Protein backbone atom coordinates (compact mmCIF):
# COMPACT_ATOMS: atom_id res chain seq x y z
CA UNK A 1 0.00 0.00 0.00
CA UNK A 2 2.81 2.35 0.95
CA UNK A 3 4.38 1.78 -2.43
CA UNK A 4 1.30 3.08 -4.14
CA UNK A 5 1.37 6.26 -2.07
CA UNK A 6 4.99 6.75 -3.00
CA UNK A 7 4.19 6.29 -6.62
CA UNK A 8 1.43 8.93 -6.38
CA UNK A 9 3.77 11.23 -4.57
CA UNK A 10 6.46 11.00 -7.21
CA UNK A 11 4.01 11.54 -10.01
CA UNK A 12 2.76 14.57 -8.11
CA UNK A 13 6.29 15.87 -7.62
CA UNK A 14 7.24 15.40 -11.24
CA UNK A 15 4.18 17.34 -12.37
CA UNK A 16 5.14 20.19 -10.07
CA UNK A 17 8.85 20.28 -10.72
CA UNK A 18 9.60 21.41 -14.29
CA UNK A 19 7.15 24.27 -14.40
CA UNK A 20 7.45 27.43 -16.44
CA UNK A 21 8.69 29.45 -13.52
CA UNK A 22 11.61 27.22 -12.71
CA UNK A 23 15.14 27.97 -13.67
CA UNK A 24 16.65 25.47 -16.08
CA UNK A 25 19.08 24.30 -13.41
CA UNK A 26 16.16 23.19 -11.25
CA UNK A 27 14.93 21.19 -14.19
CA UNK A 28 18.29 19.66 -14.82
CA UNK A 29 18.70 21.21 -18.27
CA UNK A 30 21.40 23.68 -19.08
CA UNK A 31 21.89 25.47 -22.33
CA UNK A 32 23.69 28.30 -23.90
CA UNK A 33 20.75 30.72 -23.88
CA UNK A 34 19.40 30.33 -20.38
CA UNK A 35 21.16 33.41 -19.05
CA UNK A 36 19.16 35.58 -21.40
CA UNK A 37 15.98 36.74 -19.69
CA UNK A 38 12.73 35.29 -20.97
CA UNK A 39 9.93 37.74 -20.12
CA UNK A 40 7.69 37.92 -23.17
CA UNK A 41 5.24 40.81 -23.19
CA UNK A 42 1.69 40.02 -24.25
CA UNK A 43 0.55 41.80 -27.36
CA UNK A 44 -3.15 42.57 -27.65
CA UNK A 45 -4.75 43.42 -30.93
CA UNK A 46 -6.98 46.47 -30.70
CA UNK A 47 -10.14 45.62 -32.55
CA UNK A 48 -10.93 48.29 -35.14
CA UNK A 49 -14.58 49.38 -35.50
CA UNK A 50 -16.54 47.00 -37.64
CA UNK A 51 -13.91 44.28 -37.41
CA UNK A 52 -14.40 40.89 -35.82
CA UNK A 53 -12.26 39.50 -33.03
CA UNK A 54 -9.21 37.88 -34.59
CA UNK A 55 -8.78 34.20 -33.84
CA UNK A 56 -5.40 33.61 -32.21
CA UNK A 57 -4.42 29.95 -31.87
CA UNK A 58 -3.96 28.94 -28.22
CA UNK A 59 -0.53 27.50 -28.93
CA UNK A 60 0.79 30.70 -30.46
CA UNK A 61 -0.13 33.67 -28.28
CA UNK A 62 1.06 37.03 -29.59
CA UNK A 63 4.02 38.61 -27.85
CA UNK A 64 6.04 41.71 -28.62
CA UNK A 65 9.16 39.55 -28.87
CA UNK A 66 7.49 36.97 -31.13
CA UNK A 67 6.25 39.67 -33.52
CA UNK A 68 9.67 41.30 -33.63
CA UNK A 69 11.32 37.98 -34.44
CA UNK A 70 8.68 37.35 -37.09
CA UNK A 71 9.32 40.74 -38.66
CA UNK A 72 13.04 40.01 -38.85
CA UNK A 73 12.47 36.65 -40.48
CA UNK A 74 9.93 38.10 -42.92
CA UNK A 75 12.43 40.62 -44.22
CA UNK A 76 15.57 38.49 -43.99
CA UNK A 77 17.02 36.78 -47.09
CA UNK A 78 18.52 34.20 -44.74
CA UNK A 79 15.36 32.26 -45.59
CA UNK A 80 16.38 31.68 -49.21
CA UNK A 81 18.94 29.25 -50.60
CA UNK A 82 21.18 31.94 -52.14
CA UNK A 83 20.36 34.67 -49.60
CA UNK A 84 18.86 36.90 -52.25
CA UNK A 85 15.18 36.80 -51.42
CA UNK A 86 12.85 36.90 -48.48
CA UNK A 87 9.12 37.11 -48.04
CA UNK A 88 9.27 40.81 -48.79
CA UNK A 89 10.60 40.10 -52.28
CA UNK A 90 7.03 39.26 -53.29
CA UNK A 91 5.15 41.06 -50.54
CA UNK A 92 6.21 44.75 -50.50
CA UNK A 93 4.70 46.86 -47.71
CA UNK A 94 4.24 49.80 -50.10
CA UNK A 95 2.06 47.68 -52.39
CA UNK A 96 -0.01 46.38 -49.49
CA UNK A 97 2.28 43.35 -49.42
CA UNK A 98 1.91 42.36 -53.08
CA UNK A 99 4.65 42.60 -55.72
CA UNK A 100 3.13 44.56 -58.59
CA UNK A 101 3.58 41.84 -61.19
CA UNK A 102 1.09 39.41 -62.70
CA UNK A 103 2.85 36.30 -61.48
CA UNK A 104 5.70 36.18 -58.98
CA UNK A 105 9.20 34.97 -59.75
CA UNK A 106 11.31 33.02 -57.26
CA UNK A 107 15.07 32.89 -56.63
CA UNK A 108 15.84 30.74 -59.62
CA UNK A 109 14.11 33.17 -61.93
CA UNK A 110 11.26 30.72 -62.45
CA UNK A 111 7.94 32.41 -62.68
CA UNK A 112 4.98 30.89 -60.85
CA UNK A 113 1.48 30.79 -62.25
CA UNK A 114 -0.13 32.88 -59.57
CA UNK A 115 -0.12 36.46 -58.48
CA UNK A 116 1.16 37.41 -55.05
CA UNK A 117 -1.55 38.16 -52.51
CA UNK A 118 -1.99 41.13 -50.23
CA UNK A 119 -1.26 40.21 -46.64
CA UNK A 120 -3.47 42.96 -45.30
CA UNK A 121 -5.93 41.77 -42.61
CA UNK A 122 -4.60 38.29 -43.27
CA UNK A 123 -5.24 37.28 -39.66
CA UNK A 124 -8.98 37.44 -40.34
CA UNK A 125 -8.92 34.79 -43.06
CA UNK A 126 -10.43 31.63 -41.63
CA UNK A 127 -11.48 29.50 -44.56
CA UNK A 128 -8.08 28.70 -46.00
CA UNK A 129 -5.11 30.73 -47.23
CA UNK A 130 -3.79 31.11 -50.79
CA UNK A 131 -5.94 31.62 -53.87
CA UNK A 132 -7.06 28.01 -53.57
CA UNK A 133 -7.38 27.76 -49.78
CA UNK A 134 -4.81 24.99 -49.48
CA UNK A 135 -3.20 26.23 -46.27
CA UNK A 136 -5.25 26.26 -43.09
CA UNK A 137 -3.26 28.53 -40.83
CA UNK A 138 -0.57 31.18 -41.08
CA UNK A 139 1.69 28.87 -39.08
CA UNK A 140 1.25 26.17 -41.71
CA UNK A 141 1.50 28.65 -44.60
CA UNK A 142 4.79 30.20 -43.51
CA UNK A 143 6.51 26.84 -43.91
CA UNK A 144 5.65 26.68 -47.61
CA UNK A 145 7.61 29.46 -49.41
CA UNK A 146 10.96 28.34 -47.98
CA UNK A 147 10.97 25.03 -49.81
CA UNK A 148 8.88 26.03 -52.81
CA UNK A 149 11.18 25.68 -55.85
CA UNK A 150 9.65 28.75 -57.46
CA UNK A 151 9.90 30.83 -54.29
CA UNK A 152 12.78 30.69 -51.79
CA UNK A 153 13.91 27.20 -52.81
CA UNK A 154 15.84 26.30 -49.70
CA UNK A 155 15.39 23.45 -47.23
CA UNK A 156 14.19 23.99 -43.71
CA UNK A 157 17.06 21.90 -42.44
CA UNK A 158 19.44 24.37 -44.01
CA UNK A 159 17.50 27.42 -42.81
CA UNK A 160 17.32 26.02 -39.28
CA UNK A 161 21.08 25.56 -39.19
CA UNK A 162 21.65 29.08 -40.56
CA UNK A 163 19.41 30.44 -37.81
CA UNK A 164 21.16 28.40 -35.10
CA UNK A 165 24.57 29.70 -36.18
CA UNK A 166 23.40 33.29 -36.52
CA UNK A 167 24.80 35.93 -34.14
CA UNK A 168 21.41 37.32 -33.08
CA UNK A 169 18.56 34.94 -33.95
CA UNK A 170 19.18 32.42 -31.12
CA UNK A 171 18.76 35.23 -28.61
CA UNK A 172 15.57 36.42 -30.32
CA UNK A 173 14.12 32.89 -30.32
CA UNK A 174 14.98 32.69 -26.61
CA UNK A 175 13.22 35.98 -25.91
CA UNK A 176 10.17 35.02 -27.95
CA UNK A 177 9.74 31.37 -27.07
CA UNK A 178 11.89 30.68 -24.01
CA UNK A 179 14.10 28.07 -25.62
CA UNK A 180 17.08 27.06 -23.49
CA UNK A 181 19.49 26.12 -26.19
CA UNK A 182 20.02 27.21 -29.78
CA UNK A 183 19.53 23.60 -30.86
CA UNK A 184 15.86 24.07 -30.02
CA UNK A 185 15.33 26.48 -32.93
CA UNK A 186 12.86 24.81 -35.28
CA UNK A 187 10.97 25.68 -38.41
CA UNK A 188 7.76 25.50 -36.37
CA UNK A 189 8.96 28.28 -34.07
CA UNK A 190 10.09 30.36 -37.04
CA UNK A 191 6.68 29.89 -38.64
CA UNK A 192 4.95 30.83 -35.38
CA UNK A 193 6.92 34.07 -35.21
CA UNK A 194 6.14 34.98 -38.83
CA UNK A 195 2.47 34.20 -38.21
CA UNK A 196 2.50 36.54 -35.20
CA UNK A 197 3.96 39.31 -37.31
CA UNK A 198 1.43 38.71 -40.07
CA UNK A 199 -1.47 38.93 -37.60
CA UNK A 200 -0.44 42.49 -36.81
CA UNK A 201 -0.92 43.54 -40.45
CA UNK A 202 -4.26 45.22 -39.87
CA UNK A 203 -5.61 47.92 -42.14
CA UNK A 204 -8.46 50.06 -40.80
CA UNK A 205 -7.53 53.62 -41.73
CA UNK A 206 -9.01 54.05 -45.16
CA UNK A 207 -11.37 56.82 -46.15
CA UNK A 208 -14.13 54.21 -45.92
CA UNK A 209 -13.32 53.74 -42.21
CA UNK A 210 -13.18 57.49 -41.68
CA UNK A 211 -16.61 57.93 -43.25
CA UNK A 212 -18.39 54.91 -41.81
CA UNK A 213 -16.88 54.66 -38.34
CA UNK A 214 -14.98 57.79 -37.45
CA UNK A 215 -17.23 60.46 -38.94
CA UNK A 216 -14.09 62.28 -40.06
CA UNK A 217 -14.76 62.36 -43.78
CA UNK A 218 -17.62 62.22 -46.24
CA UNK A 219 -18.01 60.30 -49.48
CA UNK A 220 -18.29 62.27 -52.67
CA UNK A 221 -21.59 61.71 -54.49
CA UNK A 222 -19.84 59.41 -56.89
CA UNK A 223 -18.25 57.30 -54.12
CA UNK A 224 -21.59 57.13 -52.36
CA UNK A 225 -23.32 55.89 -55.51
CA UNK A 226 -20.50 53.39 -55.93
CA UNK A 227 -21.00 52.05 -52.44
CA UNK A 228 -24.73 51.74 -52.88
CA UNK A 229 -24.28 49.73 -56.07
CA UNK A 230 -21.56 47.64 -54.44
CA UNK A 231 -23.91 46.66 -51.60
CA UNK A 232 -27.10 46.43 -53.70
CA UNK A 233 -28.62 49.17 -51.56
CA UNK A 234 -30.80 50.44 -54.41
CA UNK A 235 -31.97 54.03 -54.34
CA UNK A 236 -32.59 54.04 -58.08
CA UNK A 237 -29.22 52.48 -58.86
CA UNK A 238 -28.51 49.09 -60.37
CA UNK A 239 -27.14 46.27 -58.19
CA UNK A 240 -23.49 45.51 -58.80
CA UNK A 241 -23.61 42.43 -56.54
CA UNK A 242 -20.03 42.90 -55.29
CA UNK A 243 -20.84 42.58 -51.58
CA UNK A 244 -22.11 39.02 -51.96
CA UNK A 245 -18.53 37.91 -52.30
CA UNK A 246 -16.54 40.94 -51.15
CA UNK A 247 -18.64 41.68 -48.06
CA UNK A 248 -17.97 44.87 -46.14
CA UNK A 249 -16.38 45.89 -43.86
CA UNK A 250 -13.46 43.55 -44.55
CA UNK A 251 -14.06 43.57 -48.30
CA UNK A 252 -14.33 39.79 -48.43
CA UNK A 253 -16.81 37.12 -47.42
CA UNK A 254 -13.84 34.81 -46.89
CA UNK A 255 -15.15 32.25 -49.37
CA UNK A 256 -14.43 30.67 -52.74
CA UNK A 257 -16.30 31.28 -55.98
CA UNK A 258 -16.02 30.99 -59.71
CA UNK A 259 -16.52 34.60 -60.76
CA UNK A 260 -16.63 33.62 -64.42
CA UNK A 261 -13.13 34.65 -65.50
CA UNK A 262 -12.64 31.75 -67.88
CA UNK A 263 -14.61 30.35 -70.75
CA UNK A 264 -14.32 26.59 -70.53
CA UNK A 265 -15.99 23.73 -72.35
CA UNK A 266 -16.26 21.67 -69.19
CA UNK A 267 -15.32 21.92 -65.54
CA UNK A 268 -12.14 19.90 -66.10
CA UNK A 269 -10.68 22.40 -68.55
CA UNK A 270 -9.62 25.25 -66.26
CA UNK A 271 -5.95 26.14 -66.69
CA UNK A 272 -5.73 26.50 -62.93
CA UNK A 273 -8.17 24.32 -61.01
CA UNK A 274 -8.07 26.58 -57.94
CA UNK A 275 -10.08 25.19 -55.00
CA UNK A 276 -10.91 22.04 -57.00
CA UNK A 277 -7.24 21.13 -57.09
CA UNK A 278 -7.35 21.07 -53.30
CA UNK A 279 -10.75 19.47 -52.62
CA UNK A 280 -10.66 17.14 -55.67
CA UNK A 281 -14.29 18.06 -56.27
CA UNK A 282 -14.88 18.94 -59.94
CA UNK A 283 -17.53 21.47 -58.94
CA UNK A 284 -14.84 23.40 -57.09
CA UNK A 285 -12.70 23.69 -60.21
CA UNK A 286 -12.20 27.30 -61.25
CA UNK A 287 -13.19 28.58 -57.79
CA UNK A 288 -10.80 30.96 -56.07
CA UNK A 289 -10.81 32.93 -52.89
CA UNK A 290 -12.63 36.24 -53.22
CA UNK A 291 -9.82 38.33 -51.72
CA UNK A 292 -10.26 41.45 -49.67
CA UNK A 293 -10.78 44.60 -51.70
CA UNK A 294 -9.18 46.78 -49.02
CA UNK A 295 -6.20 48.54 -50.56
CA UNK A 296 -7.20 47.10 -53.90
CA UNK A 297 -6.05 50.26 -55.71
CA UNK A 298 -2.49 49.43 -54.59
CA UNK A 299 -2.38 45.77 -55.60
CA UNK A 300 -2.59 45.72 -59.40
CA UNK A 301 -2.47 43.60 -61.49
CA UNK A 302 -5.60 41.71 -60.53
CA UNK A 303 -6.96 38.17 -60.17
CA UNK A 304 -5.09 34.95 -59.35
CA UNK A 305 -3.06 35.20 -62.55
CA UNK A 306 -2.82 38.98 -62.65
CA UNK A 307 -4.73 39.17 -65.93
CA UNK A 308 -6.21 42.64 -65.43
CA UNK A 309 -3.97 45.69 -65.22
CA UNK A 310 -6.43 48.19 -63.82
CA UNK A 311 -9.55 48.42 -61.72
CA UNK A 312 -11.35 49.83 -64.76
CA UNK A 313 -10.65 46.57 -66.58
CA UNK A 314 -11.93 44.60 -63.59
CA UNK A 315 -15.18 46.56 -63.54
CA UNK A 316 -15.57 46.18 -67.31
CA UNK A 317 -15.16 42.46 -66.84
CA UNK A 318 -17.83 42.23 -64.14
CA UNK A 319 -20.11 44.55 -66.09
CA UNK A 320 -20.04 42.26 -69.08
CA UNK A 321 -19.54 38.95 -67.26
CA UNK A 322 -19.02 37.31 -70.63
CA UNK A 323 -18.81 33.80 -69.24
CA UNK A 324 -21.70 33.97 -66.83
CA UNK A 325 -23.54 31.16 -68.58
CA UNK A 326 -20.47 29.34 -69.70
CA UNK A 327 -19.42 26.97 -67.01
CA UNK A 328 -21.88 25.34 -64.71
CA UNK A 329 -20.34 26.53 -61.48
CA UNK A 330 -20.15 30.25 -62.22
CA UNK A 331 -21.73 31.84 -59.17
CA UNK A 332 -25.42 32.82 -59.36
CA UNK A 333 -24.47 36.41 -58.53
CA UNK A 334 -22.36 36.81 -61.65
CA UNK A 335 -24.38 38.29 -64.49
CA UNK A 336 -24.09 41.26 -66.85
CA UNK A 337 -24.65 44.37 -64.75
CA UNK A 338 -25.63 46.87 -67.43
CA UNK A 339 -23.85 49.75 -65.73
CA UNK A 340 -23.36 53.06 -67.51
CA UNK A 341 -19.88 54.55 -67.88
CA UNK A 342 -20.61 56.90 -65.01
CA UNK A 343 -21.76 54.02 -62.80
CA UNK A 344 -18.63 52.05 -63.60
CA UNK A 345 -16.57 55.08 -62.63
CA UNK A 346 -18.60 55.40 -59.41
CA UNK A 347 -17.65 51.85 -58.48
CA UNK A 348 -13.98 52.49 -59.18
CA UNK A 349 -14.15 55.65 -57.09
CA UNK A 350 -15.71 53.73 -54.24
CA UNK A 351 -12.97 51.09 -54.42
CA UNK A 352 -10.41 53.88 -54.04
CA UNK A 353 -11.96 54.82 -50.69
CA UNK A 354 -10.67 51.47 -49.39
CA UNK A 355 -7.07 52.64 -49.76
CA UNK A 356 -5.14 52.93 -46.51
CA UNK A 357 -1.65 54.38 -46.75
CA UNK A 358 -1.33 54.65 -42.97
CA UNK A 359 -1.13 50.88 -43.21
CA UNK A 360 1.43 50.73 -46.00
CA UNK A 361 3.61 53.33 -44.26
CA UNK A 362 3.27 51.90 -40.75
CA UNK A 363 6.84 51.81 -39.38
CA UNK A 364 6.06 48.55 -37.57
CA UNK A 365 5.57 46.88 -40.94
CA UNK A 366 8.84 47.99 -42.54
CA UNK A 367 12.15 46.22 -42.72
CA UNK A 368 14.06 46.12 -39.42
CA UNK A 369 17.36 46.01 -41.31
Amino acid sequence: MNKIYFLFFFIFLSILSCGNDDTPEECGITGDLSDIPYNPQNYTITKPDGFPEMFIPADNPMTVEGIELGRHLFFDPILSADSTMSCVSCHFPSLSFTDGVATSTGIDGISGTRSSMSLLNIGYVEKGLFWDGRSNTLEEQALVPIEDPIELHDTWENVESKLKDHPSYPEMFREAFGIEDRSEITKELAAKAMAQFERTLISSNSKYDKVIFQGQAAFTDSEDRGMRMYTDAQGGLPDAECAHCHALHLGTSDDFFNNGLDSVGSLTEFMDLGLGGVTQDTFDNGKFRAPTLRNIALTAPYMHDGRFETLEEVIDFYNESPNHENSSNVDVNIRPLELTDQQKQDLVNFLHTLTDTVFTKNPAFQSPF
Partner: protein
Amino acid sequence: MKKLFPIILFSSFLFFQYSCKPDPTLEATTDVELVFKGKYADEVLMINTVYDYDGSPIRFDQFNFYISNVVLVKEIVGNPEETELLEIDFVDLSFKPADITDATKGFVITAPNIPVGEYSGIKINLGVASDLNKTSWEDYGTGHPLRKPGHFWSAWESFIFSKTEAKIDIDSDGSFSHKLAYHTGSDAAYRTKFFAKDITLDEDATSSILFTVDAKMMFDEIDVMTETGTHNINDMDLVNEVMDNLQEKALAIE
Protein backbone atom coordinates in the same frame (compact mmCIF):
# COMPACT_ATOMS: atom_id res chain seq x y z
CA MET B 1 6.00 9.23 5.95
CA LYS B 2 3.07 10.00 8.20
CA LYS B 3 3.47 13.69 7.51
CA LEU B 4 3.07 13.02 3.85
CA PHE B 5 -0.31 11.40 4.21
CA PRO B 6 -2.32 14.57 4.71
CA ILE B 7 -0.54 16.18 1.76
CA ILE B 8 -1.26 13.25 -0.47
CA LEU B 9 -4.82 13.05 0.70
CA PHE B 10 -5.32 16.73 0.14
CA SER B 11 -3.76 16.66 -3.30
CA SER B 12 -5.81 13.67 -4.38
CA PHE B 13 -8.86 15.52 -3.09
CA LEU B 14 -7.91 18.52 -5.21
CA PHE B 15 -7.31 16.25 -8.17
CA PHE B 16 -10.72 14.63 -7.94
CA GLN B 17 -12.38 17.92 -7.21
CA TYR B 18 -11.19 19.32 -10.52
CA SER B 19 -11.32 16.20 -12.63
CA CYS B 20 -14.95 15.19 -12.41
CA LYS B 21 -17.58 17.69 -11.49
CA PRO B 22 -20.92 16.06 -10.81
CA ASP B 23 -23.87 18.15 -11.85
CA PRO B 24 -24.96 19.95 -8.69
CA THR B 25 -28.61 20.08 -9.76
CA LEU B 26 -30.43 16.86 -9.31
CA GLU B 27 -32.77 17.31 -12.26
CA ALA B 28 -32.24 14.54 -14.81
CA THR B 29 -31.25 15.74 -18.24
CA THR B 30 -30.41 14.33 -21.64
CA ASP B 31 -29.08 15.48 -24.99
CA VAL B 32 -31.55 16.27 -27.75
CA GLU B 33 -30.59 15.99 -31.39
CA LEU B 34 -32.38 18.11 -33.94
CA VAL B 35 -31.93 16.36 -37.26
CA PHE B 36 -32.70 18.24 -40.47
CA LYS B 37 -32.89 16.13 -43.61
CA GLY B 38 -32.79 18.05 -46.85
CA LYS B 39 -34.82 16.62 -49.69
CA TYR B 40 -35.99 17.52 -53.13
CA ALA B 41 -39.49 16.06 -53.44
CA ASP B 42 -38.71 12.42 -52.61
CA GLU B 43 -34.96 12.49 -53.19
CA VAL B 44 -32.09 13.26 -50.82
CA LEU B 45 -31.01 16.87 -51.39
CA MET B 46 -27.42 17.56 -52.37
CA ILE B 47 -25.81 20.44 -54.18
CA ASN B 48 -24.43 19.86 -57.69
CA THR B 49 -26.96 17.10 -58.26
CA VAL B 50 -29.56 17.23 -60.96
CA TYR B 51 -33.26 17.06 -60.07
CA ASP B 52 -36.34 17.68 -62.12
CA TYR B 53 -38.11 21.00 -61.91
CA ASP B 54 -41.34 20.79 -63.90
CA GLY B 55 -39.57 19.04 -66.76
CA SER B 56 -36.34 21.06 -66.64
CA PRO B 57 -33.13 19.96 -64.92
CA ILE B 58 -32.36 21.95 -61.76
CA ARG B 59 -29.25 21.96 -59.62
CA PHE B 60 -28.61 23.63 -56.26
CA ASP B 61 -25.51 25.62 -55.28
CA GLN B 62 -26.52 26.15 -51.68
CA PHE B 63 -29.49 25.77 -49.36
CA ASN B 64 -29.31 26.92 -45.75
CA PHE B 65 -31.12 28.95 -43.12
CA TYR B 66 -30.89 30.23 -39.56
CA ILE B 67 -33.07 28.95 -36.73
CA SER B 68 -33.61 30.90 -33.51
CA ASN B 69 -35.08 30.31 -30.05
CA VAL B 70 -35.96 26.66 -30.52
CA VAL B 71 -38.01 25.53 -27.52
CA LEU B 72 -39.78 22.42 -26.34
CA VAL B 73 -43.27 23.21 -25.14
CA LYS B 74 -45.02 21.58 -22.20
CA GLU B 75 -48.72 22.26 -21.95
CA ILE B 76 -49.60 22.67 -18.31
CA VAL B 77 -53.34 23.09 -18.61
CA GLY B 78 -53.57 26.11 -20.79
CA ASN B 79 -50.33 27.52 -19.48
CA PRO B 80 -47.53 26.50 -21.82
CA GLU B 81 -44.06 26.19 -20.35
CA GLU B 82 -41.07 26.51 -22.62
CA THR B 83 -37.69 24.80 -22.33
CA GLU B 84 -34.98 26.31 -24.50
CA LEU B 85 -33.05 23.96 -26.78
CA LEU B 86 -30.97 26.58 -28.49
CA GLU B 87 -30.82 30.30 -29.05
CA ILE B 88 -29.43 30.41 -32.57
CA ASP B 89 -27.99 27.98 -35.08
CA PHE B 90 -27.39 27.60 -38.78
CA VAL B 91 -28.86 24.69 -40.70
CA ASP B 92 -26.78 24.01 -43.79
CA LEU B 93 -28.20 21.46 -46.18
CA SER B 94 -25.61 22.14 -48.91
CA PHE B 95 -24.12 18.64 -48.75
CA LYS B 96 -21.88 17.61 -51.62
CA PRO B 97 -22.50 14.39 -53.55
CA ALA B 98 -19.28 13.00 -52.06
CA ASP B 99 -20.90 13.40 -48.66
CA ILE B 100 -24.05 11.48 -49.52
CA THR B 101 -23.84 9.51 -46.28
CA ASP B 102 -23.99 12.74 -44.28
CA ALA B 103 -26.70 14.12 -46.54
CA THR B 104 -28.80 11.01 -45.92
CA LYS B 105 -28.21 11.19 -42.19
CA GLY B 106 -29.17 14.84 -42.15
CA PHE B 107 -27.72 17.98 -40.56
CA VAL B 108 -27.54 17.37 -36.82
CA ILE B 109 -27.59 19.99 -34.08
CA THR B 110 -27.24 18.75 -30.51
CA ALA B 111 -28.82 20.59 -27.60
CA PRO B 112 -27.15 19.34 -24.40
CA ASN B 113 -28.60 18.88 -20.91
CA ILE B 114 -32.30 19.22 -21.57
CA PRO B 115 -34.57 18.19 -18.67
CA VAL B 116 -36.17 14.81 -19.31
CA GLY B 117 -39.93 14.46 -19.37
CA GLU B 118 -42.97 14.66 -21.59
CA TYR B 119 -43.34 17.57 -23.94
CA SER B 120 -46.22 18.36 -26.22
CA GLY B 121 -44.57 20.25 -29.02
CA ILE B 122 -41.59 22.12 -30.43
CA LYS B 123 -41.33 25.70 -31.61
CA ILE B 124 -38.75 26.76 -34.18
CA ASN B 125 -38.22 30.30 -35.32
CA LEU B 126 -36.90 30.71 -38.83
CA GLY B 127 -34.39 33.49 -39.29
CA VAL B 128 -32.46 35.51 -36.72
CA ALA B 129 -34.47 36.90 -33.78
CA SER B 130 -34.67 40.68 -33.80
CA ASP B 131 -32.43 41.19 -30.75
CA LEU B 132 -29.62 39.24 -32.42
CA ASN B 133 -30.46 40.69 -35.81
CA LYS B 134 -29.45 44.10 -34.45
CA THR B 135 -25.92 42.78 -34.12
CA SER B 136 -23.52 42.00 -36.92
CA TRP B 137 -21.37 39.01 -37.84
CA GLU B 138 -18.26 40.77 -36.57
CA ASP B 139 -19.63 40.68 -33.03
CA TYR B 140 -19.12 36.94 -32.77
CA GLY B 141 -16.12 34.76 -32.16
CA THR B 142 -14.76 32.13 -34.49
CA GLY B 143 -17.07 29.14 -34.68
CA HIS B 144 -20.23 31.00 -33.63
CA PRO B 145 -23.09 30.38 -36.08
CA LEU B 146 -23.50 34.13 -36.64
CA ARG B 147 -19.85 34.66 -37.60
CA LYS B 148 -20.56 34.40 -41.30
CA PRO B 149 -19.54 37.44 -43.34
CA GLY B 150 -21.35 35.98 -46.34
CA HIS B 151 -24.59 35.80 -44.37
CA PHE B 152 -24.78 39.41 -43.32
CA TRP B 153 -26.06 42.14 -45.54
CA SER B 154 -25.03 45.62 -44.56
CA ALA B 155 -27.57 47.39 -46.78
CA TRP B 156 -30.38 45.45 -45.12
CA GLU B 157 -28.76 45.77 -41.68
CA SER B 158 -29.72 42.17 -41.26
CA PHE B 159 -28.35 38.70 -41.32
CA ILE B 160 -29.29 36.76 -44.41
CA PHE B 161 -31.86 34.39 -42.91
CA SER B 162 -31.79 31.90 -45.73
CA LYS B 163 -30.02 31.31 -49.00
CA THR B 164 -31.54 29.16 -51.70
CA GLU B 165 -29.35 29.26 -54.79
CA ALA B 166 -30.05 27.08 -57.78
CA LYS B 167 -29.69 26.96 -61.54
CA ILE B 168 -32.18 25.64 -64.05
CA ASP B 169 -31.38 24.31 -67.50
CA ILE B 170 -34.56 25.63 -69.02
CA ASP B 171 -34.17 24.27 -72.52
CA SER B 172 -32.37 21.11 -71.37
CA ASP B 173 -29.36 21.94 -73.53
CA GLY B 174 -26.88 21.13 -70.78
CA SER B 175 -26.34 24.77 -69.83
CA PHE B 176 -27.70 25.67 -66.41
CA SER B 177 -28.08 29.27 -67.33
CA HIS B 178 -31.23 30.31 -65.50
CA LYS B 179 -29.97 31.38 -62.07
CA LEU B 180 -31.99 31.70 -58.91
CA ALA B 181 -30.61 33.50 -55.88
CA TYR B 182 -33.28 33.71 -53.21
CA HIS B 183 -31.80 35.41 -50.18
CA THR B 184 -34.04 36.46 -47.32
CA GLY B 185 -33.58 38.73 -44.34
CA SER B 186 -34.77 41.67 -42.18
CA ASP B 187 -37.02 41.43 -39.12
CA ALA B 188 -40.15 41.25 -41.26
CA ALA B 189 -38.93 37.95 -42.70
CA TYR B 190 -38.77 36.22 -39.29
CA ARG B 191 -41.20 33.30 -38.99
CA THR B 192 -42.37 31.08 -36.14
CA LYS B 193 -43.24 27.45 -36.73
CA PHE B 194 -44.94 25.34 -34.07
CA PHE B 195 -45.25 21.59 -34.34
CA ALA B 196 -47.65 19.89 -31.94
CA LYS B 197 -46.12 16.51 -31.18
CA ASP B 198 -45.67 14.30 -28.16
CA ILE B 199 -41.98 14.23 -27.41
CA THR B 200 -40.64 12.10 -24.57
CA LEU B 201 -37.11 12.68 -23.35
CA ASP B 202 -35.56 9.78 -21.43
CA GLU B 203 -32.56 10.09 -19.22
CA ASP B 204 -30.64 7.17 -20.67
CA ALA B 205 -30.84 7.87 -24.38
CA THR B 206 -30.17 10.79 -26.67
CA SER B 207 -33.47 11.82 -28.21
CA SER B 208 -33.69 12.76 -31.86
CA ILE B 209 -36.31 15.02 -33.32
CA LEU B 210 -36.41 14.63 -37.06
CA PHE B 211 -37.35 17.33 -39.55
CA THR B 212 -37.41 17.30 -43.30
CA VAL B 213 -36.84 20.36 -45.44
CA ASP B 214 -38.01 20.11 -49.02
CA ALA B 215 -36.01 22.51 -51.19
CA LYS B 216 -38.49 22.19 -54.04
CA MET B 217 -41.17 23.73 -51.86
CA MET B 218 -39.10 26.90 -51.50
CA PHE B 219 -40.23 27.79 -55.02
CA ASP B 220 -43.86 26.83 -54.57
CA GLU B 221 -46.22 29.27 -56.30
CA ILE B 222 -43.32 31.51 -57.23
CA ASP B 223 -42.74 32.16 -60.91
CA VAL B 224 -39.08 31.22 -61.10
CA MET B 225 -38.91 32.40 -64.69
CA THR B 226 -39.47 36.02 -63.75
CA GLU B 227 -38.48 36.08 -60.08
CA THR B 228 -34.81 35.23 -60.16
CA GLY B 229 -33.45 36.94 -57.08
CA THR B 230 -34.19 38.76 -53.91
CA HIS B 231 -31.17 40.69 -53.03
CA ASN B 232 -32.35 44.13 -52.78
CA ILE B 233 -34.39 45.95 -50.24
CA ASN B 234 -37.30 46.35 -52.63
CA ASP B 235 -37.79 42.64 -53.03
CA MET B 236 -39.63 42.20 -49.73
CA ASP B 237 -42.63 40.58 -51.39
CA LEU B 238 -40.49 37.80 -52.73
CA VAL B 239 -38.59 37.56 -49.42
CA ASN B 240 -41.91 37.08 -47.64
CA GLU B 241 -43.10 34.47 -50.12
CA VAL B 242 -39.86 32.50 -49.75
CA MET B 243 -40.00 32.60 -45.95
CA ASP B 244 -43.69 31.62 -46.00
CA ASN B 245 -42.75 28.66 -48.14
CA LEU B 246 -40.02 27.63 -45.73
CA GLN B 247 -42.38 27.95 -42.80
CA GLU B 248 -45.51 26.44 -44.27
CA LYS B 249 -44.42 24.04 -46.98
CA ALA B 250 -40.74 23.14 -46.89
CA LEU B 251 -40.18 22.41 -43.20
CA ALA B 252 -41.99 19.42 -41.71
CA ILE B 253 -41.59 17.21 -38.67
CA GLU B 254 -41.47 13.41 -38.98
